[in-house]
């Protein structure tokens, strides 16, 4: 037990020492799927997380192939899902950046891309 405890505590001490963030709501899946290619620009991007989200502190931005923002602004949050409408942006690579606060009070952020084209 004592040895196990010591082994267990070491990574935690490292965690504290490095100040690494620890948080909760992780991206479970998205639509369009992460890294996938779709034929035409989607009307919206929907992200599903592993936990419920706080609307007041959750947001998502989407930039199109030209680097300009193509999201309509404020994201819609319901339970563990967050959606944002898109204005369209042609073919190419879209970048999705998200930052969410889970109901259990922890902030996470991340990004992914998807492709639009034939």
């Amino acid at each position, binding site marked *: 037990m004592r040895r196990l405890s010591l082994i*267990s505590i070491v990574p935690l001490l490292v965690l504290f020492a490095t100040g690494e963030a620890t948080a909760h709501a992780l991206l479970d899946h998205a639509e369009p799927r992460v890294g996938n290619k779709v034929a035409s620009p989607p009307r919206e991007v929907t992200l599903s997380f592993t936990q*419920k989200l706080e609307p007041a502190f959750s947001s998502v931005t989407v930039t199109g192939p030209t680097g300009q923002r193509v999201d309509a602004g404020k994201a819609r949050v319901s339970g563990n899902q967050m959606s944002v409408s898109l204005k369209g942006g042609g073919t190419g690579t879209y970048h999705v950046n998200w930052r969410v606060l889970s*109901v259990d009070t922890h902030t996470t952020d991340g990004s992914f891309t998807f492709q639009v084209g034939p």
Partner: protein
Amino acid sequence: MEWSAAGAPLVATRAVHFAATAITVGDVIFRTIIAAPLLHSGPTASTLRVSWLGLVASVISGAIWLLLQAASMSGLPLDEALTADVISTVINETQFGTVTVVRAGLVICLVACLACDRTLLARWLGFVAALAFAASLAWTGHAGSTVGAEGYLHLVADALHLMAAAAWIGGLVSLILLLWAAHRSKAIAAARHAVRWFSILGIISVAVLLLTGAVNTVILVGSPRGLIFTNYGQLLLVKLGLFAVMLALAAVNRFRLTPELASSGNEQSSVALRHLIRNSAIETACGLSILAIVGLLGTLHPAIHLVHLTISR
């Protein structure tokens, strides 16, 4: 990924708040269920101070938690986050804020009940408010954000888990004070009464902790792999180890020292009482260590998410 508020202060504040809540709630339960028949005798007089001190510590640590949480939620540095706009958004638009307001109301109720502690109605109203004060913490943790029908089961299990933990760990502090007062005033009969009833309370608490702990573990860890290969699981194993030590000490108290305390020999009773105080102090230390671990566990990814996650950011 960024955590703007320093992690260690938030973990420490959570741990202090959990400990202060447990001590307050444990003392209210102890006074209502166990010490009530002894309330007019000397040994119980000092335990009311435990509730007051615990409540003050709960309020201070709760306020600091709110401020640190506001910084964490907003992503701003602490000095920039402490504005009326950010704090009102946290209070009015998040589940954490709602729970904080509810708990502040429960603190006011507890203050009124403690001030009128001599009346039966106030004592039982305080008992209910204390249980709610412990249970409400479930809505600030992982259980409050679990998705779907499983979320309701998780909340119920976690609320019961918190109430049972507070009754046992918090109650130990009051038990030690009562036993110490009984030892000094040679009031062995009061000590026998308290130990006998605390033993029953302990058995009920342990049963609830085991059942609800199993439910929480299935939901948050999910597999032996999650228990062994994640920080969350490893820390949970440390917590279970401390829980096992507490159980072993409780068994010694129940099956060896309690019969010795009940024996007719004064010298043997006195020795048993001293050993009970010592064991209860070690149990309390283990219990407070568990609460410190809980303060950290709530800030870690649940193991089941790390094991099952198929798409990472």
